[in-house]
């Protein structure tokens, strides 16, 4: 006689096995959590090729998703920032995804492509493996909505103001000399982009990995841009081989408004005398008008050439690239200020310039003209 298991038991076992196999990738493992009163709604979320794999004691999450979001508010959206969390306290467990340069009308939908690799411990509380939350929305009137946990407001506002500055300049060229003048501007930007040396920068969390080269403290060369409300008085940084760490800065508010934060951009010189733009240091410093304060960080950066070879750093300079005031306003250098011969051949194109250059390269001059006139 055959020993038959009850059908219900067999079904349960089959379901359990299926659940165990798909536990790593089932849709319930990912959650998009938008506040109910947010002027942004989730239309759909396709987690398609996302997967999780165990790596030692950690879980490696590869996220490949397309979220379809809709502007459910009344104002036009210029930028959105999402916070993606696998584990708050794990290094590499959090990421943010920011989409500036949007122009989403009320009721319109738009896709958000998410390609990230995050870490989280294997043993964690039950619940979604990955949480996607809203960090902020910037509107066309420069109003902001959101919890701003990762300073989305500063990033979105700086991008938008910089984009308006650069579009205005290109539009002026268009109105002054027609499409040929605009083409000349775009070709000039393309040439600059192609000729600039690039350096790869890696944030290193735990400081120096080797002791091959002795570490030395070098003074930072401070570049001053016209009309900057904050002055970089002096600074120092510890350099060893391809690593720079623990910058110390002395900042002074030379303007009339209280300052909430500044961003210092870096130029790195290698042993061959070549100079590269190499990242920035956003620093929250409360500076009253006339006040001088130090700002210091313990972090470290590692520099390498595009082929992967270590870049030997000999000197670094810094300049104030943006200032956020306590009242929420921002200061950015003018385009004339950035014509500084020291910066001209080194500074990368702004995000908006690069976007318009890419548009010109792919879609032609008419597409750029339409963009400039639409976002006028």
């Amino acid at each position: 006689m055959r020993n038959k298991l009850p059908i219900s038991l067999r079904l349960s076992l089959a379901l359990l096995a299926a659940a165990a196999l798909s536990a790593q990738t089932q849709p319930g493992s990912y959650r998009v959590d938008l506040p109910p009163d947010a002027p942004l709604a989730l239309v759909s979320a396709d987690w398609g090729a996302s997967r999780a794999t165990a790596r030692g004691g950690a879980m490696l999450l590869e996220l490949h998703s397309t979220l379809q979001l809709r502007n459910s508010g009344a104002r036009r959206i210029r930028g959105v920032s999402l916070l993606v969390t696998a584990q708050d306290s794990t290094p590499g467990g959090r990421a943010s995804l920011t989409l500036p340069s949007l122009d989403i009308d009320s009721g319109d939908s738009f896709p958000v492509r998410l390609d990230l690799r995050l870490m989280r411990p294997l043993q964690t509380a039950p619940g979604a493996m990955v949480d996607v939350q809203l960090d902020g929305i910037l509107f066309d009137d420069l109003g902001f909505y959101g919890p701003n946990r990762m300073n989305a407001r500063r990033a979105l506002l700086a991008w938008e103001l910089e984009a308006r500055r650069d579009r205005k300049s290109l539009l002026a060229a268009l109105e002054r000399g027609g499409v040929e003048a605009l083409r000349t501007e775009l070709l000039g930007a393309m040439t600059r982009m192609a000729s600039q040396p690039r350096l790869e920068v890696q944030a290193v969390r735990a400081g120096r990995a080797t002791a091959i080269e002795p570490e030395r403290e070098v003074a930072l060369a401070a570049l001053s841009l016209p009309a900057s409300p904050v002055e970089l008085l002096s600074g120092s940084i510890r350099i060893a081989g391809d690593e720079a760490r623990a910058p110390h800065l002395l900042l002074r508010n030379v303007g009339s408004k209280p300052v909430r934060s500044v961003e210092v951009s870096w130029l790195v010189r290698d042993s061959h005398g070549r100079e590269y733009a190499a990242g920035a240091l956003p620093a929250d410093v409360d500076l009253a008008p006339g006040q001088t304060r130090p700002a210091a960080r313990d972090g470290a950066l590692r520099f390498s050439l595009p082929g992967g070879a270590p870049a030997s750093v000999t000197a670094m300079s810094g300049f104030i690239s943006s200032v956020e005031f306590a009242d929420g306003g921002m200061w950015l250098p003018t385009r004339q200020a950035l014509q500084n011969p020291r910066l001209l051949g080194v500074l990368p194109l702004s995000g908006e310039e690069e976007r318009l250059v890419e548009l010109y390269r792919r879609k032609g001059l008419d597409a750029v003209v339409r963009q400039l006139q639409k976002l006028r």
Partner: protein
Amino acid sequence: MLRAALPAEALDESVAADALPGVAWSVFEAEMRANIRLGLTAGALAGEPESVPQPASPAPVPFWRWATVCGALVFVLGAGWWLGTPRHAPTPVVQSVLTLPVEGEDADAAPPAGFELLIPASGAARTEADFNGATRARLIDGETGRVTLQQVYAQ
């Protein structure tokens, strides 16, 4: 089982005979036996039940059928794989790197945890890092004009 279920006095023939004095038990027994024999004889006359026909051994399945089934299976599996594979499998541009020391290795000698940028071949990608431990990648899609800034945090 039936006998076991009966009370003991019901099995005692003398008790039964006393209980029904008018019944000729010997005649009744003879008739029962005759009925049983009749049943057996009738069964024999009717003949043995025809043996259940053995199922004919299945005819060999032609090769083309096997080929069709296998082809269909290959098609279904292939289509499943093709549909399940993302058409656009982008390389994540920002990844965290946690280097775990090998067992027995001095933990101080192991490379520190950090972040690594996997820069796509596209020239429209730019990466940055800052002393707060964050690493950023700026991606520009020339087709749509969309910009994406991705950032991972060390702390």
